[in-house]
C-alpha cells in the first residue's frame, strides 16, 4: 500500500487532529503536496470538500511499474514521418522520406532519421493504430491525457495527476521532490489536475536543462548565495509577527510546512536531482546537449530519486508549414534523446519499473499540403496516429495495430486513448475500474465504462 493511501486511512479513521501528532519528517515524507492536506479538517474557513480525503481510496495492487516518463510531442507529430512510414504510398504522402530503415527487430521499419531508435526496437513497442478522430489541439490533448471527452461538467485529471494521487512519493525515499514534475513548461489547461485540484498539479521546472546552471524556477537562483538564502530566511522568521502569534492556526501550519519543503529543495540536497551537470560529460553528450536531450537525462535522474511521473513537454511538432524542414532538424535530436533515455534506463535496471510513453495529441494529415503557404506542411489529424511505449511491463519489439496504405485510417486493432491509459494504470497497480471521489461528493471512475459511450479496444494485453 502506498504511503499516500496510508495517510488517507489514518486520517479518516482517527480524524484530522491526529495529524498534528505526526512528526514533521513523517509528514514531509508524504511528498511535497501530500502533507499539506493534513490540516484541512481543522480549518473552518475552507470549503468542506476542497481537500477532503477519499475514505474509499483503495490500496494499489502489486505493480510492475513504479514510475512514468511521458514524452509529450506537443502539437502533434506526423505519424508518417516517425513510426508509421508509408514509402509505398507515393511522394504526396511520404514526401522526401522514401527509405525507412530497418530496426533490430525484423519487420519493424521507422523513419530513416531515427537511427538510434532503430538499434533498440526490441526495447519498445509501437502502437500504430491510435485513434480518436479529434483534430483540435485542446480537446485532443485533454482526451489523450485524461481518456475523456470534455463536456460532461466534470474536468478529469490527467494521467500524471492520477498517478501522483495514488502513488505519492515512495516512502523509502528521503528527499522531498514533488511526485509529478513537468520539464520544463506546463501545458497550462492541457495538463490540469482536473477535479483533483492544485495539490496534484505538476511542478513545472521552467528554465533550460541544456544551460548551466539549469535554473529550476524557485529552486536554483544563481544570483543568491547560500549564505544570503540563510540570512534571508532568518530575517523572515524574525519579522513574521503574524506567524509568531498565530502559531496554532491551520493556515500557519500549512505555510510553515510548505516553506520547510521549499527550503529542503532550495538549501537541501533534494534540489540536486534536477542538476544534469552532476552527470559525467560523456553521458550528457550521449543524450544530446539540446533542451530535449538534457530533459531526458534529468527525467532519468528524477526517476532514480523516486519521482513518480515526469512529463517532458516537447514543443515544435505543429508543422503546418514546411514539415520536412522541421523534421530534418528535429528528428535527430528526438532520436538521440529518447534512445539514450531508454538504453540508459535499461542499463541501470530501471526500464522494467519505468514506463516511457511518447506521443502527441494527434497525428498529422497523411496527404502533404505542398501548396503555399504550407510548402510541404501537414495539418492536424486525429483519425490515426502512433505512440511508442517502453518499459514498466510493456514488452518490446512489437507493433500493435496498423493503418491503411496511406496512413489515413486504422485498419487493424484500433487503440483509443483510454486503452493506453488503462493499460498504464494496470501496470502501475492502479485498477482502471476504480473510482475516486469528486469534490462534489460523487464517485468517478478512472476509466469510463464502455456502456457509457466510451469507445475502447480493450487493454493492450498483447504487449503487457
Amino acid at each position: 500500500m502506498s504511503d499516500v493511501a496510508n495517510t488517507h486511512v489514518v486520517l479518516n479513521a482517527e480524524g484530522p487532529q491526529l495529524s498534528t501528532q505526526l512528526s514533521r519528517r513523517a509528514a514531509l515524507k508524504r511528498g511535497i503536496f501530500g502533507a499539506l492536506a493534513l490540516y484541512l479538517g481543522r480549518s473552518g474557513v475552507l470549503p468542506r470538500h476542497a481537500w477532503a480525503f477519499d475514505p474509499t481510496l483503495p490500496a494499489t495492487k502489486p505493480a510492475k511499474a513504479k514510475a512514468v516518463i511521458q514524452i509529450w510531442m506537443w502539437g502533434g507529430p506526423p505519424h508518417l514521418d516517425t513510426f508509421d512510414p508509408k514509402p509505398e504510398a507515393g511522394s504526396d504522402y511520404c514526401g522526401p522520406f522514401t527509405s525507412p530503415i530497418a530496426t533490430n527487430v525484423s519487420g519493424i521499419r521507422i523513419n530513416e532519421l531515427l537511427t538510434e531508435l532503430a538499434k533498440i526496437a526490441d526495447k519498445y513497442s509501437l502502437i500504430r493504430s491510435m485513434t480518436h478522430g479529434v483534430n483540435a489541439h485542446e480537446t485532443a490533448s485533454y482526451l489523450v491525457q485524461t481518456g475523456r471527452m470534455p463536456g460532461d461538467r466534470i474536468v478529469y485529471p490527467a494521467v500524471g495527476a492520477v498517478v501522483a494521487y495514488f502513488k505519492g512519493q515512495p516512502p523509502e525515499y528521503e528527499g522531498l521532490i514533488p511526485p509529478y514534475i513537468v520539464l520544463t513548461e506546463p501545458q497550462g489547461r492541457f495538463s490540469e489536475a482536473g477535479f483533483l485540484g492544485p495539490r496534484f498539479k505538476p511542478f513545472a521546472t521552467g528554465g533550460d536543462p541544456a544551460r548551466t546552471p539549469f535554473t529550476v524556477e524557485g529552486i536554483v537562483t544563481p544570483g543568491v548565495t547560500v549564505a544570503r538564502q540563510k540570512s534571508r530566511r532568518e530575517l523572515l522568521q524574525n519579522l513574521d509577527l503574524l506567524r509568531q502569534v498565530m502559531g496554532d492556526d491551520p493556515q500557519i501550519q500549512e505555510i510553515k510546512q510548505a516553506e520547510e519543503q521549499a527550503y529542503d529543495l532550495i538549501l537541501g540536497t533534494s534540489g540536486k536531482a534536477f542538476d544534469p551537470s552532476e552527470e559525467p560529460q560523456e553521458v550528457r553528450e550521449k543524450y544530446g546537449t539540446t533542451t530535449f536531450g538534457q530533459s531526458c537525462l534529468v527525467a532519468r535522474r528524477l526517476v532514480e530519486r523516486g519521482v513518480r511521473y515526469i512529463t517532458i513537454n516537447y514543443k515544435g511538432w505543429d508543422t503546418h508549414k514546411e514539415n520536412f524542414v522541421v523534421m530534418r532538424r528535429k528528428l535527430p535530436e528526438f532520436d538521440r534523446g529518447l534512445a539514450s533515455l531508454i538504453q540508459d534506463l535499461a542499463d541501470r535496471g530501471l526500464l522494467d519499473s519505468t514506463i516511457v510513453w511518447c506521443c502527441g495529441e494527434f497525428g498529422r494529415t497523411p496527404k502533404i499540403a505542398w501548396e503555399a503557404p504550407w510548402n510541404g506542411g501537414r495539418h492536424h489529424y486525429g483519425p490515426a496516429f502512433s505512440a511508442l511505449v517502453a518499459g514498466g511491463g510493456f514488452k518490446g519489439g512489437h507493433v500493435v495495430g496498423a493503418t491503411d496504405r496511406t496512413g489515413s485510417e486504422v485498419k487493424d486493432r484500433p487503440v483509443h486513448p483510454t486503452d493506453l491509459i488503462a493499460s498504464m494504470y494496470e501496470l502501475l497497480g492502479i485498477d482502471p475500474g476504480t473510482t475516486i471521489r469528486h469534490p462534489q461528493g460523487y464517485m468517478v471512475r478512472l476509466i469510463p465504462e464502455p456502456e457509457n459511450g466510451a469507445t475502447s479496444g480493450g487493454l493492450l494485453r498483447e504487449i503487457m
Partner: protein
Amino acid sequence: MRNPVPIGFLLAALTVTATFAAIPPEPVEPFDSNQEFSVRNRIDELLAARWKEQGITPALICSDAVFLRRVYLDLIGTLPTESEARKFLEDRDPRKRERLIDELLNRPEYADYWTMRWGDVLRIKAEFPINLWPNAVQAYNRWLYSSLARNKPYDQFVRELLTSSGSNFRVGPVNFYRATQDRNPKGIAQVVAITFMGVRADQWPREKLEGMAAFFSQISFKPTMEWKEEIVSWDPYAGSAATQQAPPREAVFPDGVKIQLPADRDPRQVFADWLISPKNPWFAKNAVNRIWYWLFGRGIIHEPDDIRDDNPAVAPEVLSYLESELVRSGWDLKHIYRLICNSATYQLSCISRSQNPQASIYFAYYPMRRLDAEVLIDAICQITGTSEEYWSMVPEPYTIIPQGERAIRLGDASITSAFLELFGRPPRDVGLVSERTNRMTASQRLHLLNSSHTLRKIEEGPGLEWARTSYANPRQTVTRLYLTILSRYPTEKEWEILKQTTAKSSRLSREMVVDLVWALMNSTEFLYRH
C-alpha cells in the same frame, strides 16, 4: 498598553471557558486594538447571542491598520498605497472606518473586483470546456462591470441574466445560457439553480429537475453569418426541432408548484418572476450568503452553493435579517456590504480569544485566508511598480491584454498566466466556489521565496528604486516600506530587530533593502488576509 479587562469578560472567562486554556488578555500589537467587542448593529446583536449561548469569547476589535488592509482587500481586491495607508492611519475622525467603507464602495476597483468574483460564479471563459468566445466574453464582462458599477438592483440584475435575448457579441447577459458545458434544458436548470439558489440540482429527483428544466426548453441558439456569433432567444419550437417531440406544456417550480406554460410568453420570464420575488425562499438567501462567504471565507450556510435542508445555517437569524435588508433596500447589494463591513463582527481581529473550536464557525474572529491569485499578483506588481504579461491562445480575434493590466480585471479564465494557474485561480468550469483554491502549496512557496519572477520584481522593479538607492535615512526608508507592503508603521520591536540584523551602521545598503522587501513580501501578514 495594558488593557483593563472588563468584568463581563472575566465572568465569561470564569464561567464558560473554564475548560479551555487561558486566553491572552492583552491586545497583540500591531493586530489588535485595545477595544473589546461591543454591539454596533443588528448582525452583532444576533451573533453575540450565539456566542453567549456557545460560551465563545470574541476576538478584540482589529487595529486601524488591519482594518484598512482588510477592507481594501475584501471590498476592492486591492492593496492600499503608501499614501492611502498613511492618510487613514493618521486620520483622527472616530468615524473614519465607516467613511472608508463608503469610499471604497464607490471606487472603480469595486466593480473590477466584483466583476471577477461574479465572473467565477457565471463561468466567464472564452474557451474550453465553457466556450463563450472572446468577443462574447468582452460583451458579458462589459455588462457585468457596468451593472456592478451602477449598483443595479440585484433582482433586475438576475432578471436580465435570465430573460435577455439577442447576439452573444452585443447583448452581454445572453451569455449566461451559453456559459455551460451542456446546453440542454436540464443542464441549464442546474446552472440556474446553483447560481441563483445556491442549490445543487444534480442531486434532485429526476422529475423535479425535469419540471424546472421545462422553463428552459424553449431557448434557441442560432448561429449567424459572423463567425461564432449566436442569437439567443425564445423559440417555442427550439427544443422540438432537435427532439422531434412537442415542447413540454407543463413546468414545475423548485418549490413544487406546477403550472401550465402560457403559449404567448417566454417561459424564462415566468421562471424569473417566480425566482426574483421577495417571497422566494432561496433567492435573497443565496445572494446574502454568498456575500457573507466572500467577506468571511465561510458562508452562514456553507458551502454557499450547497444550500439544502440537511445543511443548516449556523445562524439562520443573521441570514434572515440580511435577506430582509436586501429586499427592504430595493435589492441594494452595496447596502449589504455596508452592513457587514460596519459590524463589529467583521472588524474583529484574527487572533482568537476563545479555545472553543466553534469560534471559527460562529465568526468570533476574522479568519486568515491566503490572498486570491489575482489579488496577490496585483499587490506584488503595485508594490514593485511592475506589470505582468497576459495573453490568450484563443485566436480570432487575439485577446490583446494592454500592458499593465491588473489581474482582477482580466475577466477571462482562458487567459494564460503561469502565476495565476499556480496560485489556484478558478478554471470557471462549473462555477462552484470550491473551484478557487487558496491553499498554500510548496510550489507556491518556492515561487514566492526564490523564483526569478519574484526576485526580479524585488531587485529591479522601478517602484522600489527609491528605496534601493536611499541609503541615508534608514528609519524613514523602513517606515515607508512597511506602509507600502504591510500598510502599517513598523513597531518598536520590529525596528529593534532590523537595527540588529541589518543596520549596525547608519546606512542601508541596496542589498539590505532588497532583503527587507523580500522578507516583508514573504511574511504571512502580506500573503494572507487577516
